[in-house]
Every structure is written in structure tokens, then in C-alpha cells.
């Protein structure tokens, strides 16, 4: 049945007292008044300002670095180069990999990316740094450092980089083939394969086969707050880092590794974070500011400019992709083949393995072959970006699915539903799904009034697409401390990028039977909470929320024990529900949470709850988008007329912030689909490294983004939570391409689909 239209719908299967409501976020007043302190808002006594000198060349050998003029500047307090970081000695067999959020890297490459020693592999790679009395003085002094380069030819295109005669980025990097090191030096850092069933047999059964090639441009996460850090190397040898990051423990660990320090010597205080989207998991300035602080004896702050952000951090890879899919006349998918070549940037580590897992993930396809290539190019080393790897890959497969639907004469959502993955379906990597909401998402799209609403007028089209992302579990810790007025202090280690203080507190409140407002959540430093993996992988409300649930269960048990003490009864005869402790047999024995909290200090002292988890029951996520566009066949400009995003949240703890993730991801996906791109000059420079020229979506570009939250509870979480942060970015580029086909009759095979790309497609259609 088609439900009545509302802009934001929640299709709940289970309701709770606190979970599923929409309280005001705990950090709200701070953030609307300017009181919240972000990464750059740190001003310790005696602060100096650091500035990094970066390579103007995309590929060059460093012959020499002369810092003498900068050192002679009276405002300068210290100068450093890559020689001031510990050298990375290769120990055969030793694993020197460093985890960076959803990705990981080799320690040697991590150090070279922080400050180069002998060679630079992208424009903007750091070479040296200064600390001075003011930001202006530091900038001037950095320019006085003289570097002698031997400029080498760059390669910035993924397919060019794979050629035999391409310029080689790293002479010591040998291609890894199916998990084994080969002796071959090339820009292909690794090649792997997923195989399922019998591909040839599958294609032989197909009545319709579609094979297409795709190219997607490099794009940036585009968070509004640049990377920033302030570091004090204290006189006792302890290093204190204040920064804005997604993973305080990840960056503490990586910073300690880079500096060759024991973990306990580094303390990281996460300030409020102004967006990350995967791009704030890596140390950039932290080890540099640390060494400058050690040299000067003062705290040192480094704030990146926007151009430094584009040229030296992020981005997410450009890619070359081939997808071939086969279906029977009746619409059953029988075979899928994908070739995924992803840019790693200057150092290995693109998200191509995640892409391989995602490319056909929404569907039950018995025969699959996926080849993945991690390819070095002279661009900044890629970082995670919201469902890293998935958007490129599913742009390709979801446009091929649309073309299959057209050839088969089957409604595109109906075709997706016929082939939708479900519990037990095997993915290309061989694993089987647990309970998932893929079909439920597609059904909700079909049922939405938008899908059947009339769309009249020339050059208008409606497109749909579905996206998959795997989500993450990993480690989280939460402490709860009861106050005698019945409020509870909650400490956690997950930076709050989009309202997670509240979605975590709500889960503790639900267990304790108290209002969300009675929990006071704080994100604390790495000395003050157990190890917590960073805010990424859509994991925070799932895993840190799980830890809060466990901590609240711990408090609940202690409350029951205190009541048993007061009443002199066996604790097993008591129960706590809805914020009241009561006897299972004697209705007279009853005490509210608040009344019991008031007795805390007379019944044994502090009550503290502990939650420490590494939950394995990760709930994967599916999301779909219905998109109406109008395209101008004279100029190629595309206008978004209407958008409806549908997503399985498992359980939406705070529906407003789930909607926010869906809307934000959708709009990032629209920006990626229509506009965003690194324009690379032949010499490897980025030509558009400002917000003006990179041109992310603005309010004027968009309509309202309607949402439907589907709830297929994840059995691996007490309230059924799946992660919601990432998957919404996956479908938009394919939905746009499919809508453009309806509008103009052209199949788009590249991102972005900017006016130039649309006009090229129109002209080749008209030929």
C-alpha cells in the first residue's frame, strides 16, 4: 500500500521510551552560540605557529634543502626537515603497518608523506617546516627555505600509471599479486581477485549482456574545518596533542609510531571536529608540530589552508572501471564481472578492496569475478571518504543494471527487487549475509508516492539506484558515573561529528529508564577512557552505543544491589524497569532511580558502569535514491527537481540525525555526480584547489531531500542499530546518470557529469 506522503517518514517496527525520540543534542547550545571549541580554538601559553613548506612539483627528487635563510629570520624559533623524523629501517618480516581508520599504510610511507626525505610523489607533499612567532612570520619564513629538485615526469591517470613505460613512483615497491609479493617493480601496488561460481557458465546462460567502461574523477571530502593541530612536547617528555580528528586513539598511535615513542608518552585531546567524512583519520601536522615543539620548548599550532587541504590531504580516488553483467529473459542476474583500477595517490592504500566487496553487493548473482588494482599516481595519498570505494564501483554497476532493465523491458526497481540480496545470499568475497534490509529498501522506494508521481515536461527524467556499504564494528569504551541527583555522567572516546553524544546517551538512558537529558555525555582525551576506534565506518552509534548499553546494564545491576541492601532482600528478587527498582513479589518494595541515586553514598559509595566492547554483529547497510532532474540540452546544466532517499537504519536511535546523514550523504553524492573534480594540469598540479573553483553544492543548487527510514533490526545490536553514516552517498551518482538517460536519452559513463560531459554525450548521441 502506498503510504500518505510526508517529507520525512520512519517505518518503525518497534518503539521504545527514549530510543526513537528526538531530544535536543547535548552539545547543541555550545554549537549555536560559538562556545564549542574546535581544533583551531586552542591557545596554550607561549604558543608558536608552524608552517609547512610543500613541494611545487608532482614528482621530483630532492637534491638538497637549505634552511639557513629561514633560520636567520628573527621571528623564527625552529626549522625542521624530514631528517628530523626517525628514519624507517626495514626489518625483514616485521610488520610496520599503521592503521588509519578504514585504511592502513606502511610506516615508511606514512613518514615520507608527513615529511619527505629524498623524493616527492605529489604536488603539496611536505618537505620542511618552521615555527615562528606569528602565522604570517611562519608563512614568510617557510618560503625562504631553498630546495633543489630534480624534476621527474609525473603520471596522474590511473590507466597511464599501469602501463609498462610509465614513470615509476617508488623504485622499491614490488607489485603484490593475489597476496604474494612479486619481484616486479611497477605502479600497481597490488592486484587481487574475488571469484564466485563459474563466470563463463553464467554468461552462457544470459540472454542479455551489458558491458560498459567508466571513468571517475578524484574528489575531496570537503569538510569545512581544515586539519589543525596544536602540540606541546612537555619538559617531562610527554607529548600533548590537541586536534580535530575522527580517531583520537588512531592518531595517537600513528603519531607515537612516527615519532618512535611509547604510546603512553602521547596524549591526544580531541577538540570538536568540523567534519571529517573519513578524511580526518591520518596524522599530517601532528608529528611535525611535535618536533617543532621539542626544538623550541613551546607549544606549536599548525592550521592548514584550504589549498593545502585539497593538494595534500584526502582525496578519494579517481578510477577506471569495467562492469559486465548478464541476465536471463525473465530478469534473473546470472553473471557479473568487474575490473576496478583505483588511484592510491602517491603511496599505496586505495579503498579498492572495499569497492570489490561492494560492486555487486545489492544482488544475488551466482557467478562473479572481480579484479581490483591499487595503483600509484602522482596525486595526494588517498584517504577514506564516506563508504570509501563504494560510490565509484556502484555508479558503474547501478547504471549497467538500469540498462539491463531497459533491455529486458522490466521496471528498474522491480528488476532490482527480483534479484535483491537477502539473508544467506553469498557476496563476491564468499561471505554470506545475515539479516539485511535490501529488499525492504527497494520495496519502500516502489511504494513511495514520488516513484509514481507524474513527471511532465521535456528534458526531464527520473532515475533510481541502490547502494550498499558494509559498515564497521571495532572497539569502543564507555564509562558511566552516577550522581546523587540521579543524573549520570557519560564519558566516551568517539568524536561527535553529527550528534552521536546524544545517540549514545539515549541508549544508556533507555536501559536506565531515565530521560536522555539526565545523561551528560563528554568526549574525553586518550588518557581518560579505554581504547576507542575512531568515528568512521558508520560505527559510532552502533559500537560506542553498544558500549553505553553495556555500561548502563552494569549501573543497573549495581542499583539493584543497593536496593537489595536497603531492603535487606536477595538481589535476585528485584528487577529494574522504566527507571524503577522493585521487588518481583512484594509490591511495597519500590524505589525510583532518582530516590535510589540519593542513597548512593550511604550504601557503599560511587556507582560506576563500564562498557568495553568489540561487537562482531555488524549490520550492513542498504540505501536507495529516487531522483528527478531537468537537463538543458543546450548547455548541459542539470537541475535537481526532487529527491527521495530511502535507507535501512536497523533502528534509528535519533531519527532527525539519521535523516541528516541521509540528506548530507545524498547531497555529497550529487556534488560528486554533477560537479566535483580535481582538474589536473599536465605537470601534475591541481588547477582548482579552492572552494570557489572546486564548487561543492550550495543551498541554491538543491531542493529539500525527502527521507524514508526503513527499520530491519540488526540482530547484532541490542536495539537493532546498523550504521547510518556512509551508505547514503553511494546511490546518487548512478541515480543521476539513470535520470539523465530518461531526460536526454544519453548513457553517462563518467564522473562528474558536468555540463561539458553532458554536452559531449548529447553531441555523440546526435552523430
Amino acid at each position, binding site marked *: 500500500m502506498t503510504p500518505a506522503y510526508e517529507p520525512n517518514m520512519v517505518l518503525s517496527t518497534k518503539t521504545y521510551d527514549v530510543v526513537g525520540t528526538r531530544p535536543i543534542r547535548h552539545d547543541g547550545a555550545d554549537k*549555536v*552560540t*560559538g562556545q564549542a571549541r574546535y581544533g583551531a580554538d586552542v591557545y596554550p601559553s607561549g604558543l608558536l605557529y608552524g608552517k609547512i613548506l610543500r613541494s611545487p612539483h608532482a614528482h621530483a627528487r630532492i637534491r638538497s634543502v637549505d634552511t639557513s635563510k629561514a633560520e636567520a629570520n628573527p621571528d623564527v624559533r625552529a626549522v625542521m626537515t624530514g631528517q628530523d623524523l626517525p628514519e624507517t629501517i626495514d626489518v625483514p618480516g616485521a610488520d610496520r603497518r599503521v592503521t588509519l581508520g578504514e585504511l592502513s599504510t606502511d610506516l615508511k610511507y606514512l613518514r615520507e608523506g608527513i615529511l619527505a626525505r629524498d623524493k616527492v610523489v605529489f604536488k603539496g607533499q611536505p618537505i620542511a617546516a618552521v615555527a615562528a612567532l606569528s602565522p604570517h612570520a611562519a608563512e614568510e619564513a617557510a618560503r625562504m627555505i631553498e630546495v633543489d629538485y630534480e624534476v621527474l615526469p609525473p603520471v596522474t591517470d590511473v590507466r597511464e600509471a599501469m602501463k609498462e613505460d610509465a614513470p615509476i613512483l617508488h623504485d622499491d615497491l614490488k607489485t603484490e599479486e593475489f597476496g604474494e609479493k612479486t619481484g616486479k617493480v611497477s605502479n600497481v601496488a597490488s592486484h587481487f581477485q574475488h571469484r564466485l561460481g563459474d563466470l563463463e557458465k553464467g554468461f552462457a546462460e544470459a540472454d542479455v549482456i551489458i558491458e560498459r567502461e567508466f571513468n571517475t574523477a578524484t574528489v575531496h571530502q570537503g569538510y*569545512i574545518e581544515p586539519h589543525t593541530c596544536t602540540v606541546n612536547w612537555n619538559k617531562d617528555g610527554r607529548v600533548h596533542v590537541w586536534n580535530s580528528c575522527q580517531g583520537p586513539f588512531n592518531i595517537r598511535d600513528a603519531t607515537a609510531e612516527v615519532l618512535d615513542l611509547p604510546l603512553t608518552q602521547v596524549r591526544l585531546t580531541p577538540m570538536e571536529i568540523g567534519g571529517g567524512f573519513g578524511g580526518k583519520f591520518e596524522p599530517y601536522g601532528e608529528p611535525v608540530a611535535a618536533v617543532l615543539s621539542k626544538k623550541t620548548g613551546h607549544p606549536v599550532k599548525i592550521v592548514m589552508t584550504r589549498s593545502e587541504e585539497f593538494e595534500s590531504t584526502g582525496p578519494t580516488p579517481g578510477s577506471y572501471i569495467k562492469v559486465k553483467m548478464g541476465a536471463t529473459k525473465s530478469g534473473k542476474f546470472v553473471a557479473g564481472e568487474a575490473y576496478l583500477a583505483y588511484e592510491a595517490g602517491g603511496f599505496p592504500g586505495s579503498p579498492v578492496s572495499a569497492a570489490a566487496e561492494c560492486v555487486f553487493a545489492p544482488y544475488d548473482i551466482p557467478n562473479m569475478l572481480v579484479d581490483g588494482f591499487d595503483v600509484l599516481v602522482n596525486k595526494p595519498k588517498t584517504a577514506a571518504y564516506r563508504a570509501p570505494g563504494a560510490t565509484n564501483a556502484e555508479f558503474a554497476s547501478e547504471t549497467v543494471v538500469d540498462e539491463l532493465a531497459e533491455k529486458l523491458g522490466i521496471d528498474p526497481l522491480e528488476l532490482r527487487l527480483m534479484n535483491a540480496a537477502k539473508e544467506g545470499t553469498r557476496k563476491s568475497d564468499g561471505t554470506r549475509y545475515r539479516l539485511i534490509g535490501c529488499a525492504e529498501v527497494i520495496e519502500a522506494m516502489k511504494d513511495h508516492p514520488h516513484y509514481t508521481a507524474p513527471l511532465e515536461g521535456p528534458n526531464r527524467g527520473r532515475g533510481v539506484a541502490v547502494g550498499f556499504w558494509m559498515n564497521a564494528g571495532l572497539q569502543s569504551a564507555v564509562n558511566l558515573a552516577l550522581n546523587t541527583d540521579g543524573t549520570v555522567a557519560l564519558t566516551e572516546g568517539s568524536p561527535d*561529528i553529527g550528534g552521536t553524544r546524544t545517540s549514545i546517551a539515549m541508549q544508556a538512558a533507555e536501559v536506565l529508564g531515565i530521560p536522555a537529558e539526565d545523561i551528560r555525555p563528554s568526549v574525553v582525551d586518550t588518557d581518560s577512557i579505554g581504547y576507542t576506534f575512531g568515528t568512521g565506518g558508520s560505527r559510532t552509534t552502533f559500537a560506542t552505543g553498544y558500549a553505553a548499553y553495556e555500561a548502563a546494564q552494569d549501573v543497573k545491576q549495581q542499583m539493584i544491589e543497593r536496593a537489595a541492601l536497603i531492603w535487606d532482600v536477595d538481589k535476585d528478587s528485584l528487577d529494574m524497569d522504566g527507571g524503577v527498582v522493585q521487588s518481583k513479589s512484594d509490591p511495597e518494595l519500590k524505589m525510583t532511580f532518582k530516590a535510589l541515586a540519593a542513597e548512593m553514598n550511604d550504601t557503599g559509595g560511587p556507582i560506576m558502569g563500564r562498557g568495553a566492547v568489540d561487537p562482531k554483529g555488524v549490520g550492513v547497510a542498504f540505501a536507495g535514491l529516487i531522483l528527478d532532474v531537468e537537463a538543458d540540452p543546450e548547455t548541459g546544466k542539470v537541475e535537481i527537481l526532487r529527491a527521495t532517499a530511502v535507507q535501512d537504519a536497523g533502528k534509528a536511535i535519533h531519527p*532527525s540525525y539519521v535523516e541528516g546523514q541521509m540528506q548530507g550523504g*545524498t547531497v555529497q553524492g550529487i556534488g560528486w555526480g554533477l560537479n566535483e573534480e580535481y582538474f589536473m594540469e599536465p605537470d601534475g598540479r591541481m588547477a582548482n584547489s579552492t572552494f570557489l573553483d572546486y564548487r561543492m553544492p550550495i*543551498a541554491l543548487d538543491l531542493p529539500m531531500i525527502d527521507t524514508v527510514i526503513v527499520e530491519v533490526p540488526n540482530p547484532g545490536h541490542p536495539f537493532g542499530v546498523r550504521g547510518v553514516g556512509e551508505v547514503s552517498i553511494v546511490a546518487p551518482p548512478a541515480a543521476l546518470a539513470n535520470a539523465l538517460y530518461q531526460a536526454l536519452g544519453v548513457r553517462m559513463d563518467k564522473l562528474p557529469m558536468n555540463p561539458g560531459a553532458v554536452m559531449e554525450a548529447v553531441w555523440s548521441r546526435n552523430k
Partner: protein
Amino acid sequence: MPTKTHVQTRLNGEDIEFLCEPRQSLLECLRDILQLTGSKEGCNDGNCGACTVNLDGRIVDSCLVLAVEVQGKEITTIEGVATPEGLHPIQQAFLENAALQCGICTPGFIVASKALLEAEPNPSEARIRLWLAGNLCRCTGYDKIVRAVMDAAGRMESAK
């Protein structure tokens, strides 16, 4: 020879004075000298709007204004929007509509929205989207921000 210039201005309803270098932007002085860190630096070239302040009744990117230019003028930053009695209706509407995620762009959006609603008490959705085109938000997709401004317009109207 002194290298700094003396500036007198009215900031969030108070007459103040400070010393700055002629090359320093208003944003730098607000943050580094006056310790008003509510105005944020997102790009330092006038393209993100995170540093939006009200200068003599007009919204400006404070990163594009030299501090020496504010001599004798009147500035309102995000720190001057709430009153001792409580939040401004726009601030309240942002909270109730969940119109912020990371919050780094929020001060700029609130200062810009306040200028709009003071000039045009009942703007259309299209007008709000045009007015806020100079403020980038990467988290929300703008939906809840636009709804919050429409909600705030209603609150300010009924409070009259």
C-alpha cells in the same frame, strides 16, 4: 617604529579597542587577539562563509575584511546573538530542527540568517536558499537548515 595600528570599534554592543598589524584580517583579530573563536576559518578566501559576521548591518566574510577597516564601525559576531535571557529564536530553531551536524558552519549560518530575517521577516524557501548561497555546509545537505530558518521566521513573527 611601532608596527601595530590602534583600532576602536563597537563589538557585540561593547566599545572596544585593540592593536593589530595592518595585514591582519578581522577574522584573525577576532580569534587570535580578542579570543572570540566562534567565527570559524574554513577557507580564508571568502568562499565558505564560516567566518560570517555582521558589519554595520551587512553580512561579510570577516576573513576578507582587514581589521584596520573596522575603525568606528559596529560588528556583531555569533557571540553577540544570544541574550542573557536565552538563545535567539534562530538558535533555538536550529537546535529543534537538528539543523547542525558537525557545527563548524553553524555560527556563519546563524549570523547570515539573522540578517535575512531582520530585513525580510517572511522569506520564501527560494529566497532563503539564495541568501544562504554564500555559506557552505558539507554535512546537512541544507534541508534542515532551510527548515530551521523558516521555523525561526514563524517564531520571530509570533513573538512580535
